[in-house]
């Protein structure tokens, strides 16, 4: 085999491997394992709620998209289809109860359903933002089981 053919063949093989790696690790990369993410902040629910109420823009910049652990007195547990949401209630507004809504990772649905209202609970999840009524947390797990 001629030298130029060997080089071309080598380049094609390297290109194919690079393409496969890009497909696997970039294009087709998995969502993070949310349960294992270390929280960037640990806060009391009341403090986080007040932070967003008093300074939405600043708090959004600081907290949105981050993994946060929050501790507080649980208001209620809501269950709709496969979604289980732990709710910390601080106010009433146009959409009813207002506060912090934490949608659980499915694995934690059964545990969350057993949580008692008014009980102290620590939950961590990704802060999605404040919609002027509620702070929304998603991919949540219960820390103090």
């Amino acid at each position, binding site marked *: 085999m001629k030298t130029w053919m060997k080089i071309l063949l080598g380049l094609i093989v390297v290109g194919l491997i690079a393409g496969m790696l890009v497909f696997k690790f*970039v294009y087709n990369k998995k969502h993070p394992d949310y349960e294992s993410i270390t929280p960037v902040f640990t806060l009391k629910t009341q403090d986080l709620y007040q932070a967003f109420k008093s300074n939405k823009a600043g708090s*959004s910049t600081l907290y949105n998209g981050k993994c946060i652990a929050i501790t507080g007195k649980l208001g209620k547990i809501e269950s709709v289809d496969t979604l289980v949401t732990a709710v910390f209630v601080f106010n009433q507004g*146009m959409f*009813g109860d207002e506060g912090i809504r934490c949608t659980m990772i499915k694995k934690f649905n059964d545990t969350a359903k057993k949580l008692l209202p008014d009980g102290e609970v620590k939950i961590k999840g990704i802060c999605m*933002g404040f*919609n002027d009524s509620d702070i929304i947390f998603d991919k949540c797990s219960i820390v103090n089981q």
Partner: protein
Amino acid sequence: MRTNSLILILVTLLSFSAGAQKFITKTGHIKFYSDGAVEKIEAHNRQVSSMLDAATGQFVFKVLLKSFEFEKALMQEHFNENYVESDKFPDSKFIGNVTNIKEINVAKDGSYDAQVDGMLTLHGVTNHVKTKGTFEVKQGKLVGKAKFTITLADYKITIPGAVVNSISKTVDISVDITLDKAN
């Protein structure tokens, strides 16, 4: 004094009556779907807050853009960082009316056509949206469904040059909400 008391009682009763006409949810579902030349893009948000005032027809929904879930993590990243810029514009909202609310009897089970008209804010841009949908009244709940299409350019959402020919310039939005009577 007696007149003032009567007015106060009347106002209180009217307020209670109006409150009883409100239907709300915080777990509404919005899907968006885009059928591009190379790839179909689909995302779901199941944390939509919505309120319908059955007395006036006022209809509102709010959604946080980071709450849209994509099958592929990379698509989710691109959606938030390059398209809707969710750090800069974290939410989207619709404020409008069900214009034929008088034709919807929320006290009687059944399926009713709904005409929705209002303003949709996305990516910091507000545009007029008008669409048709349905409200199904079932055991005191209202199940609302509607579909409409938006053009990304209308909301100043730009498609990067490298993929401009492989991504659709319009997005189909489906709204599916189950509203409960507010307490």
